[in-house]
């Protein structure tokens, strides 16, 4: 960071930076770090809120050991990974298609409209995305089944069947986050110098060759960002799925955040839930280290 900084006038006191930073740092310490440490401590305790009479004794690594043999927890992590691997290819593919359509010159007004419309899914309250999903995928009158009926394929009990519910939450996620990928790819495409793009257009009329040899290098940084941000966001994913399925039917859409939430706030087993949350936090920290290393390196 130091290199990119202009030479600073050393005319400020030694403690000046401290006074500017202290309020924000203090706030984040109190609301971010302190609860995290408290979760870490809770994770070594037997801590069920509904049974305060038992006290909250320290049990060492018991909670962690229990998690190791807790099938449901690992299934929910596996399901989260599967969800990520399901939605991401669609989001990337549709994202690049949309970005190419928007990058292509001509049709100014329509293009501008389409570009602005990408903001709508991104801004939609996640919980409301879930509500829309409930309406669209309703078994009796949802538009998804009406559409299937119209083209002659029978309707499906989307939210009542294992595969159906998984597909339904995947579709809503793809709807909401494809615009995100499209916007990032579009930003990448607009980084390609105009002269290079035009020269390449004279050389070849093949769109795929153009994409692979000219545009791809400019798309790669964005791609890394998307991979890591989407994986972090899917580890966080809660609102939309909670509203649509509550993790069900059975455990068909029991993503990791939903599962931990249930252990903590339905069963009130705070000890186990905290241990699970700490494991999730470790995964996230590894990811964000990776993220910072891969992405911010170029900027610094």
């Amino acid at each position: 960071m130091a290199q990119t900084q202009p030479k600073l006038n050393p005319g400020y006191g030694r403690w000046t930076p401290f006074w500017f930073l202290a309020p924000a740092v203090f706030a984040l310490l109190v609301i971010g770090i302190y609860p995290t440490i408290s979760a870490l401590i809770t994770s070594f305790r037997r801590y069920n809120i509904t049974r305060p009479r038992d006290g909250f004794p320290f049990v060492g690594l018991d909670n962690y050991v229990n998690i190791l043999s807790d099938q449901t927890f690992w299934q929910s992590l596996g399901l989260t990974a599967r969800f990520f691997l399901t939605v991401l290819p669609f989001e990337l593919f549709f994202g690049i298609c949309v970005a190419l359509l928007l990058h292509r010159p001509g049709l100014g007004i329509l293009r501008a409209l389409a570009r602005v419309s990408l903001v709508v899914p991104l801004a939609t309250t996640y919980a409301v995305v879930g509500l829309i999903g409930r309406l669209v995928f309703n078994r009796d009158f949802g538009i998804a089944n009406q559409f299937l009926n119209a083209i002659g394929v029978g309707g499906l009990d989307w939210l009542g069947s294992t595969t159906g519910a998984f597909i339904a939450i995947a579709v809503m996620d793809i709807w909401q986050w494809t615009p995100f990928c499209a916007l990032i790819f579009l930003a990448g495409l607009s980084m390609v110098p105009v002269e290079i793009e035009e020269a390449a257009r004279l050389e070849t009329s093949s769109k795929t060759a153009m994409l692979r040899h000219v545009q791809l290098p400019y798309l790669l940084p964005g791609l890394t960002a998307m991979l890591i941000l989407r994986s972090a966001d899917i580890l966080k994913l809660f609102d939309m799925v909670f509203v649509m399925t509550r993790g069900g039917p059975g455990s068909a859409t029991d993503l990791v955040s939903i599962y931990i939430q249930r252990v903590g706030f339905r069963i009130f087993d705070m000890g186990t839930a905290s241990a699970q949350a700490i494991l999730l936090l470790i995964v996230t920290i590894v990811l964000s280290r990776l993220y910072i290393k891969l992405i911010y390196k170029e900027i610094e």
Partner: protein
Amino acid sequence: MMSMTLRRILHGLGLLIVLCFTLFPFYWMVSSSFKDQTDLLASPPVWFFTPTLSNYADIFADEKVSGAIVNSLVVATLTTALSVILGAPAAYALARFNFRGKSDLWFWFISNRMISPIVLALPVYVLALQLKLLDTHLVLILIYLTFNLPIVVWICTDQFRSIPIELEQAARLDGADQFTIFRKIYVPLGLPGIAVSAIFSFIFSWNELLYALVLTRRNVQTAPVIATSFMSGYELPWGKIMATGTVIVLPVTIFALLVSKHMVRGLTMGATK
């Protein structure tokens, strides 16, 4: 070789598909909010119907909904204000001072963006229970800082760096102290960035569900919590649900359109600069 006209038509068609894809679910929600129960449950769906305002009349008459919207407004506004007041000075320090541990500090701010709310929701619930802070505006306002402060710090640091340092040096020669420099130069000139970060912070807080769900009970339920609470019972009041959804989404969509140019920056914290 395709003719130019054909390509233009295909291009236009593609763009129309994009428009339909992004706007259809939104349109479906808004149009459903103007339908009565018969039209809502109609099969096949009705595309043309006599719109009714009764769903909106219902939800605005419902004190729970209007109360929840007021709660959301209070929480989102105050947490945004607090994030800017705490975050902007920190951003200035990160943009213009050199000190030990600066990059670590910056990374720490940024990495808060990645942490799952469930990690903090558990201990904060227990703490709030002990401190009798459950179901208060304060607990939400504070916990929302965990994702709002990073966004304010990131966008404002970026903005403050673009302000010519000569202005600061000149002011210092005139004898201005550091705080005056910040207040008289950086705040006014950095206002666009501050505004963008405030809008993002408002959008994120307004949309948040998990913390609001576990940290509030009856008094401080926010709009997303109320919207999901309709989702139980035998016959769901779809019209009311969609009207509530529309009322929740509309203000943030307008805000988001205002900052649409910065959308990627806000969501990635500048990862794709």
